[in-house]
């Protein structure tokens, strides 16, 4: 069985997120506007006003409330969606942690924007990094179509009986939030069909007024650890589950994204660039150009940041001669990029090859073709045994 092709519309990434959420028929939507996410809230309100979205719309007074509302709505048995960015994510931080601990299957679009300290209304993944240990599933996407499709898959993943975890779908603010592209909008009926499998699964525990049950019990001692263990185990299961869900999605809708990671021309590659988000698109063109020039370079797109796809990365990278990681954020205290740092944790399995960190794209700085070429050239040199610099802040080096 195949889905209909769906109408082709030129819409922005934000609009794609709103379409994705709307198509999944959420019961409750609560979201507070913040640049560059605002259009998501506006578009959902428009859908509601037009009678396309039959959901309880809560015009909240802040992000903290938005997250508490959607978490509670899912624990009462509903489907709920919210979207935020940057300081909004920070302002809901306690509720973000609580949603994860409660195993609330919330889906949230997070439009990546810089966060700590230096106020910047500009792109950067630092907001997402600030919640990497919150116990959420964190996905990162590359373009408008993938935003829409991934939000549908996110509901499928979050509410799966074996998972029951909140999912954050991250996309670059400005570079993707406002990027208008041709996007196929699946029909609602097809999305219903795709999500119908959830209804065949056992009912997850919900707060039902007829049952003497309490959400968020005090956990003490080993029982507390047991819950943590189950949470971690569910995150581990989420990796394979995402691969399966992505396959199902591909079979039905004709579009798939590789699950945890997407490999691009990696098979015979000597060196690898690992990156995420909008940068992946540009990197593809640079990899193509480098291939034409005879350099065996491949690209890994990191789609899943939490849980970290360690097995997939080990499998793909082992045997390569060098890896460069381009991060759009930093890891404070390690003076490197966060994805780089996590990849370094796999060094024992990958082997002693040069692994290099490239920090770029903070505060809207464009990760341009020359920047990526530079990173590839550096990794190439390192792969030949030349001495290399572990961490490179690309735009600063060019400037200095």
């Amino acid at each position: 069985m195949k889905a209909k092709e769906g109408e082709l519309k030129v819409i922005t990434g934000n609009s794609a997120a709103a379409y994705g959420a709307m198509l999944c028929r959420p019961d409750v939507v609560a979201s507070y506007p913040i640049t560059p996410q605002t259009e998501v809230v506006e578009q959902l309100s428009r859908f509601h006003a037009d009678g396309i979205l039959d959901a309880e719309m809560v015009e909240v007074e802040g992000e903290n409330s938005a997250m508490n509302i959607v978490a509670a709505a899912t624990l009462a048995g509903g489907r709920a969606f919210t979207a935020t960015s940057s300081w909004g994510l920070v302002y809901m931080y306690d509720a973000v942690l609580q949603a994860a601990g409660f195993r609330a299957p919330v889906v949230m679009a997070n439009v990546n924007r810089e966060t700590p300290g230096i106020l910047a209304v500009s792109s950067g993944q630092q907001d997402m990094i600030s919640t990497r240990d919150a116990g959420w599933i964190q996905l990162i996407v590359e373009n408008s179509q993938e935003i829409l499709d991934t939000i549908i898959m996110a509901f499928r993943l979050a509410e799966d009986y074996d998972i029951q975890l909140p999912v954050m779908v991250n996309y670059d603010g400005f570079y993707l939030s406002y990027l208008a592209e041709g996007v196929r909008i699946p029909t609602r009926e097809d999305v219903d069909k795709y999500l119908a499998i959830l209804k065949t699964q056992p009912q997850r525990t919900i707060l039902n007024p007829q049952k003497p049950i309490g959400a968020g019990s005090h956990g003490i001692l080993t029982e507390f650890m047991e819950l943590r263990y189950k949470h971690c185990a569910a995150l581990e299961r989420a990796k394979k589950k995402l691969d399966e869900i992505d396959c199902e999605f591909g079979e039905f809708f004709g579009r798939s994204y590789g699950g945890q990671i997407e490999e691009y021309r990696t098979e015979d590659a000597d060196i690898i660039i690992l990156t995420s988000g909008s940068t992946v698109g540009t990197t593809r063109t640079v990899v193509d150009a480098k291939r034409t020039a005879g350099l065996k370079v491949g690209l890994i797109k990191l789609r899943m940041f939490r849980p970290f796809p360690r097995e997939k990365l080990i499998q793909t990278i082992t045997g390569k001669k060098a890896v460069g990681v381009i991060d759009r954020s930093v890891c404070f205290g390690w003076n490197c990029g966060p994805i780089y740092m996590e990849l370094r944790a796999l060094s024992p399995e990958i082997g002693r090859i040069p692994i290099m960190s490239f920090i770029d794209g903070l505060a809207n700085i464009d990760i341009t073709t020359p920047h990526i070429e530079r990173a590839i050239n550096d990794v190439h040199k390192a792969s030949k045994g030349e001495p290399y610099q572990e961490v490179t802040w690309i735009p600063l080096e060019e400037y200095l």
Partner: protein
Amino acid sequence: MVEKVKKLPKLFQYFKDEDQFAGGVAFCAGCPLELTLRIMSKVLGRETVIVGTPSCSAPVLYGQNIGSWHRLPYYSCLMTGVASSATGLTRYYRKAGRDVNVVCFTGDGCAADIGFQTLSGAAERNENIIYVCYENEGYMNTGIQRSSTTPRGATTSTTPVGPAGRGKTTPPKNVPLIMAMHHIPYVATATLSNMDDFVRKLLKAVEKKQEGFVYLHVFTPCPVGWGIESDMSIEVCRMAVKTNYFPLWEAENGIFRLTHNEVNPEPITKYTKLFRKYNHLNDTELAVAQEDVNSNFAFLRHLTTFGTKDKNVKK
């Protein structure tokens, strides 16, 4: 031989359900908070979800691992997320076509301070929620620190009395009046000495919650934090009413009404002498306390004279 009353008081008829709590739960001996909760569980019935926070009520309301101290469905929030979590619940139940009493139950620390934004937001949106604040004039669970409803002059562990300190220096925030200014269908104050009044307001709350947000402010003195003998807490409630320190009123659709009229109010000293938190007050300070009571009550009384419907009240 005394004459036996033939029938139990009418109050007992309001109890439509059994006490939903286990016989022994972790409240201090003589704590009116325990009484508030048990009475609520009897009056509200089973289609009720309680939403609460870390607070004095948490060791009882929260479960412990898989065990529970009561048979009420319960949602445990952080203090920042009570009215918002309740919004999520009530909106979903509404979408699912269920009539559920979603009842927030928090102390004044949450309602007036750290959880105030979400309380105000939910009230402004007129969510179908009953919000019960048990007012003990401070952060009791963490060891008696001041809150924004701690009265002027009161000693707490963060407003101690010493050579340079005379207790809290500013007057308290009047949360029920602030809530009334949100133009919600029903706001009321209550306390446990006047149990009929309290129960009637709970029942009213269930009725008015169909129209939107309901706020009940329940005066619940803390025996440990205020220095009250454990058998005296109901008497403290009673004297708070008799002195007009805590007048009992309601605002239904914006019409303010005293639900208990004290013809000859007692002087505030009859209240302040009942426990230790005002022990240090001198005559001048007590006079200020009396003035505070008088002016607050005059203001309230003035509100009751309007008698016209607030046209802004949400439907």
